[in-house]
């Protein structure tokens, strides 16, 4: 699968290296090359400096042929905008994104995006561990 990841923070880098190890063709985008040092030495994908909310950068990353786009920057709204561009302008078949704010996550799920909120997921995980629930 050809996957584009926007944002090379801890999660972006981790996911990129996992997908790369599984044999997928990964391109990772970040506005700063600082994050790329989080990628493992044997990473065989492509790392590009660019803004995932900018059409030119997206095209350079190969958005027109991508099978999946995953938005993982620190900004909820940046992720939302990039994901909507990938979905509605470039018709990428699978688009996932991180939205910290639970309310915004709910809204954009209702609007057809696959949004995940670490706030909700991690809180649930902590609660379940605390109460020995479902373990």
């Amino acid at each position, binding site marked *: 699968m050809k996957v584009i990841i926007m944002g090379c923070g801890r999660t972006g880098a981790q996911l990129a290296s996992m997908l790369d190890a599984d044999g997928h063709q990964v391109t990772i985008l970040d506005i700063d090359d600082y994050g790329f040092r989080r990628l493992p030495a044997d990473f065989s994908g492509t790392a590009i400096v660019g803004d995932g909310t900018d059409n030119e950068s997206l095209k350079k990353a190969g958005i027109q042929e991508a099978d999946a786009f995953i938005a993982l920057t620190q900004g909820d709204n940046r992720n939302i905008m990039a994901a909507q561009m990938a979905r509605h302008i470039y018709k990428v078949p699978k688009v996932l994104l991180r939205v910290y*704010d639970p309310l915004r996550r709910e809204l954009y799920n209702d*609007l057809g995006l696959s949004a995940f909120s670490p706030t909700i997921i991690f809180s649930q995980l902590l609660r379940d561990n605390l109460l020995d629930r479902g373990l």
Partner: protein
Amino acid sequence: MYIIVVGGGKVGYHLTRALLAEEHEVLIIERNKSRVDFICGELGSICLLGDGCETTTLAEAGTARADMLIAVTGDDEDNLVACQVAKHKFKVPRTIARSNDPKNEMLFALMGIDVTVSSTDVIMEHIQQEVPTHMLTRLCSFRDRGFELVEIKITEDSKSIGRKVGDVLLPSGSQLLLFIRQDQKPYMASPDITIEAADQIIALTPIDAEEQLKAALKGD
């Protein structure tokens, strides 16, 4: 009308002043505390501290009863999300977004934002208008209807100089409306007017026929 303005920068502040002068009820949502204090000091208690993309802030602002939300922050993604949350969560009938990157206009329209104003385009057009050799200036777009009002300056090298309006072959749907000549009152265009150098013509044209209209009057 009850109007919510997201972003209390220069654009938000001056826009709010103008809307207040038209006797609208206006509330600004601004993230920066010192900016909120400044606006409240100048315009009264009409500025709420908070993030205009957050549902809780928008609920506090009474967005559900707003007639319009205008998002004019410096970040396109924030303007897009503020308008989408207003539209989908609070059913605000009209949303207007500022886009700083002209390329985002298409996305905003696709995402159901009613009106998008590209600040970069607006500034560029105003500057181009002041460049003497610049032939066509957009005055006003009726985007939903597909046409616009433009001003055309007849430059010295235009091949239409000396020809009658009725003899110039205009693109379909384009119409010359008004002639403005130096030291004369503007008058309505009619087929027997002869085009002169330095004429300013106000015309109506389909948006996609702009280039053809320019070519028709320049004559090449």
